[in-house]
């Protein structure tokens, strides 16, 4: 059965998007991403280390021609910094599809939605396809859609917290009212969290720490792959009704 996952007119095989941060080295990063089955990865933009010219490059391990690079503004606390970062990313490789993340607080890493909406508007006008990290507030996500976000990415919980989807009702309301893909971004700690996001009807899940900080990241990457597939299939299947009391699975007739 066809179940396409399309963002900004581009099809993706996997509904799991993974980050490339916090790994031991690039070998481990590449292996984990392969195991996850993801065909889109988030990447950060940082200064080149001028002194150490022999440092390995991410691009040498993960070919941007094979896997979609999603440049991210992680670590940006102002609209100005986020815009600068994504304009540099576009110059680097010609990427129009980007992830916007404008943070508002160093402790919670919660997004600053005022700056986020402002930045989305500017980026869309400049021709970017913007996937936007945001709060799980249906009013804010509506606003993002109005200014042209190509995907809405509400947090399940704070970045790197691993505590799972905290507000399932809001996530499902956001999904219901959005006409662009909704991707849960941040908060996933283990496979069941990813499944829950997908069972709520979300189009995808974006995560990083849950894989990178697992004792065996490659095994967890594989678990996440199946968790997202399982959640999607469960959602599409139309789950049974919940009953208050028991309901026998074997027929009552012809009992011996």
């Amino acid at each position: 059965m066809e179940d396409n996952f399309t963002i900004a007119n581009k099809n993706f095989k996997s509904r799991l998007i993974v980050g490339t941060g916090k790994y031991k080295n690039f070998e481990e990063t590449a292996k984990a991403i392969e195991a996850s089955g993801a065909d889109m990865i988030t990447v950060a933009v940082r200064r080149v280390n001028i002194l150490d010219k022999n440092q390995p490059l991410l691009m040498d391990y993960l070919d941007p021609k094979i896997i979609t690079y999603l440049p991210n503004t992680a670590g940006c606390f102002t609209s100005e910094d986020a815009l600068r970062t994504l304009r540099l990313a576009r110059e680097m490789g010609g990427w129009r599809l980007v992830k916007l993340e404008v943070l508002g607080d160093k402790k919670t890493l919660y997004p600053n939605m005022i700056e986020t909406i402002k930045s989305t508007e500017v980026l869309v006008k400049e021709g970017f396809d913007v996937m936007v990290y945001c709060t799980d507030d249906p009013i804010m996500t509506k606003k993002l859609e109005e200014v042209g976000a190509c995907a809405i990415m509400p947090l399940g919980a704070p970045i790197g917290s691993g505590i799972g989807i905290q507000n399932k009702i809001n996530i499902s309301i956001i999904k219901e009212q959005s006409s662009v893909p909704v991707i849960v971004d941040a908060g996933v700690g283990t496979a069941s969290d990813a499944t829950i996001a997908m069972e709520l009807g979300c189009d995808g899940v974006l995560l990083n720490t849950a894989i990178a900080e697992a004792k065996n990241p490659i095994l967890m990457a594989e678990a996440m792959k199946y968790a997202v597939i399982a959640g999607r299939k469960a959602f599409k299947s139309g789950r049974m009704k919940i009953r208050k009391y028991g309901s026998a699975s074997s027929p009552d007739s012809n009992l011996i």
Partner: protein
Amino acid sequence: MNNANVARIQLNGDPFELNRGTNLNELLNKLKVQKNKVAVEVNGEIVEKKKYLNLILNNNDKVEIVQFIGGG
């Protein structure tokens, strides 16, 4: 090097000295940077790759060279 022949720039936040008249392309070659894997900003403006040869670096120019790294 005597002062007249030197351009002092800021390179990724640190002081850096060049021969006067050095263009951006020459700087990147000297640093052994793979040009197709970076983006460059001079004084806050992104420089298109085709303009590297014509951009002569001057005293006090602020040059930023960035690349993609692992991130969430």
